[in-house]
């Protein structure tokens, strides 16, 4: 009995020592353990599996009955139902909003979503300094969504207006997904203007005939559920308060994500192998790469014109931003760490390399048509320190640089007092 008590005490003491040692080591390496950070890190790891942009409030806290991508009739797919609920809630909130609010709707892909999350406050502060915003508070409505590309944003915007959204301004940040995903769609036999291959092929496909694809789909689903269960249990039991348990949870989640990613790849490859030119692949298109790039560029330009037209009809200020991206030659002096972590699919890299010059030219044309267009593709041209965290997303510092440029152009193009509602 005494021995058992001693063993128990020893084990507990050992665990406390390991926990303490781990905390000391983390603090010494400049990354002290914080429960909040651990929670956010876990959210970041599982975010791609849930198909979401990590939100400031951890999604793990939510007791969500649904998860993952769901079909949407007007823009292909959306995140879990929480987003749909959020849409209705925000539309109602905007209808009842007070006059002291200046509502900015951010649209685009994951770069736009992350930008609004990480640099929204900075951009708001820059705008609020302008006398035209005196006494008004800038409020963000972040609708950047992973892998979204035109015309998805146009459709999403049209739908938000139908739901009753009434923003004062719209900032559309895009370019990368159009060039990169448009190119990989073509390669996989999906119409370049259709949504990204992986989510669309899994949701929009009326019948999967490839056995590997079906197996992959089952595996994707299983891994997502596993990761959700791990994350939820960790939060419920307070694992994030312990450095040791946080590490263990993160490792388990990372393993799930690795398996989920591998299954997604396998499933996508199997779907692309399907010989049948199913309706989900969209109408026939010219498979020549140049024809595809022309089509993507034209759709990007036309969608922006349409967004401008919808905004103009409602007195909404519209700004379209071409985002910077690592594989656009000459856009940034790359640090070795950026090169190491920035590898993308060949089709994406090629899409960016050949597509970006066309987007820049189309952007100049947009400006000629009266669209407030900001070419920010060279915004990191003189930034030597690393800002990219992977092949297309940038860190907080990069987002702040972009925010400053956006604030400048936004204010310069904003109509004079009396015109802002």
């Amino acid at each position, binding site marked *: 009995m005494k021995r058992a008590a001693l063993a128990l005490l020893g084990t507990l003491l050992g665990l406390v020592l390991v926990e303490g040692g781990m905390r000391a080591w983390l603090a010494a390496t400049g990354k002290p353990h914080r429960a909040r950070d651990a929670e956010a890190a876990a959210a970041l790891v599982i975010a791609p599996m849930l198909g979401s942009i990590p939100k400031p409030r951890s999604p793990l806290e939510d007791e969500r*009955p*649904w*998860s*993952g*991508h*769901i*079909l949407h*009739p*007007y*823009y*292909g*797919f959306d995140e*879990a*139902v929480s987003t*749909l*609920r959020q*849409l*209705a809630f925000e539309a109602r909130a905007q209808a009842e909003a007070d006059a002291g609010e200046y509502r900015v709707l951010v649209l685009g892909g994951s770069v736009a979503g992350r930008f609004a999350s990480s640099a929204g406050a900075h951009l708001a502060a820059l705008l609020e300094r302008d006398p035209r915003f005196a006494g008004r508070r800038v409020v963000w409505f972040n609708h950047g969504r992973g892998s979204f590309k*035109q*015309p*998805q944003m*146009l*459709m999403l915007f*049209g*739908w938000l*207006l*139908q*739901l009753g959204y009434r923003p004062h301004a719209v900032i559309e940040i895009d370019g990368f997904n159009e060039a990169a995903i448009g190119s990989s769609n073509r390669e996989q036999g999906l119409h370049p*203007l*259709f*949504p990204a291959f992986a989510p669309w092929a*899994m*949701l*929009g*496909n*009326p*019948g*999967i005939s490839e*056995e590997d694809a*079906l197996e992959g*789909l*089952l595996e994707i*689903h299983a891994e997502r559920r596993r990761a959700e269960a791990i994350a939820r249990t960790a939060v419920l039991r307070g694992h994030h308060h312990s450095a040791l348990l946080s590490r263990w949870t993160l490792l388990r989640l990372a393993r799930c994500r690795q398996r989920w990613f591998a299954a997604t790849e396998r499933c996508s490859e199997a779907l692309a192998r399907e010989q049948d030119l*199913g*309706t*989900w692949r969209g*109408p*026939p298109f010219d498979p020549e790469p140049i024809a595809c790039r022309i*089509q993507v560029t*034209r*759709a990007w330009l*036309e*969608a922006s*014109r*349409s967004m*401008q*037209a*919808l905004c*103009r*009809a409602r007195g909404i200020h519209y700004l379209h931003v071409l985002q910077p991206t690592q594989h656009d030659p000459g856009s940034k002096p790359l640090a070795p760490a950026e090169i190491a972590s920035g590898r993308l699919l060949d089709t994406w890299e090629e899409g960016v390399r050949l597509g970006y010059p066309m987007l820049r030219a189309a952007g100049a044309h947009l400006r000629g048509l009266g669209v407030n267009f900001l070419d920010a593709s060279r915004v990191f041209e003189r930034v030597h320190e690393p800002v990219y965290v992977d092949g297309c997303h940038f860190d907080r510092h990069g987002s702040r640089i972009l925010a400053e440029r956006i604030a400048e152009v936004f204010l310069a193009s904003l109509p004079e007092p009396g015109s802002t509602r």
Partner: protein
Amino acid sequence: MSSKRVAIALASLLAAPLALELGYRAWTRTGDYRYSASSARNEIALVLSPLRNARPVRLPREEEAQVTVQFLHPYLGVEYKSGSRWTISAEEFSKRSEAEYTVLILGGSVSAIFASGRGAQHLRELLRADPRFAGRTVRCINQGRGGYKQPQQLMLLGYLFARGIRPDLVLEIDGFNEVALGNDNATRRLHPLYPPFIPWARLGSFGGASPELLDAQLATWREWRRAERVAASASRSPLLHSALIGRWTIRRLRCMRARWIEAQRGYMDLLGSQAGDEPWRGPPFEEGPEAAPGRVARAWKDASLDMRALCAERGIAYVHVLQPTLHDEGSKPATQEELRVGTMLDTWREGVRAGYPLLREAGEELRAQGVDFLDLSRAFSDVEQSVYYDGCHFDDRGNEILAERIAEAVLAALERERARPAEDRR
């Protein structure tokens, strides 16, 4: 053991299955039934047919080429394809000559019937007869689709423009589907601005499942795949010529089908027990079904303003027509025949009754905001003979009447456009 004994053992080893096979064939040879590999294949197909008729199944290619199929579209909700012909084909849209005046017609099935038949034909005749169209050809492009309602037409127009399509005039004919199907949606707990319930519930519910529902759905897929695998290997194998093996395979498949039915039942039970807030139903519509006509009318007006804005950006004329419909009170002296053929769902009829006055009101607001809006809901108010052949579609005579009024509106819109100062035009 002597070689003779080995030979006997081997021969009996071979003879036993043969004897069994022959015995089994003799035993099962009752009535008209004769076992054959081809009859076994047919039976396998029969056993698997309920599994194949459920998701995920694709029509055989040759069959798909014959029929009009409804499928998911990322921007329109539901789209149609007839054989190998897509409803949107790039060739169809390219201008054939500079002298060509193209009219893009959007809306639901009433607009599609107008655009593909006597309505568009008469509209072309009337426009060509006008001196302003001298030397020009008029082409009507049919982009009406059965069941479409706003904002589907708005999304379609945005998508067509993104694809580079440039008509001279956009003609939107709508009204019935918005209020009838919008009301039907709301009573079935589907958002009234989502595509109509019937295709969307079938096509759009996949993926929008709770983890438990998705588990249940995938369990049915798993059983289906297992059965297909067994059926495929059996059908390829020469062993299917054996009645014993063939019957055993069919028996195995029947067991698999039973498991599939069990899984399917579990899925359906779960689906039935849903609270009605599944993601495929769209954002919560908290106002309740009674508020649907008002919500639909507001969205209809907004969508029309948005379509006008998209057209104006490109210097394209836009005319919006509110179509007539049988159950809109006072819209037509209905004949006995029309009343007989014009029955429809109560939810549709109620949607029309409550919604049409609201659409007319919203139409007036549209006109006040500068939209070329044409209220044709009373176009048949003094037509005594039958024009409706069901609750909402009308015959050639009805379409001719519509075409006459639309031609007048188009010519007036063109005149107004011409009178505008050049700098106001984009």
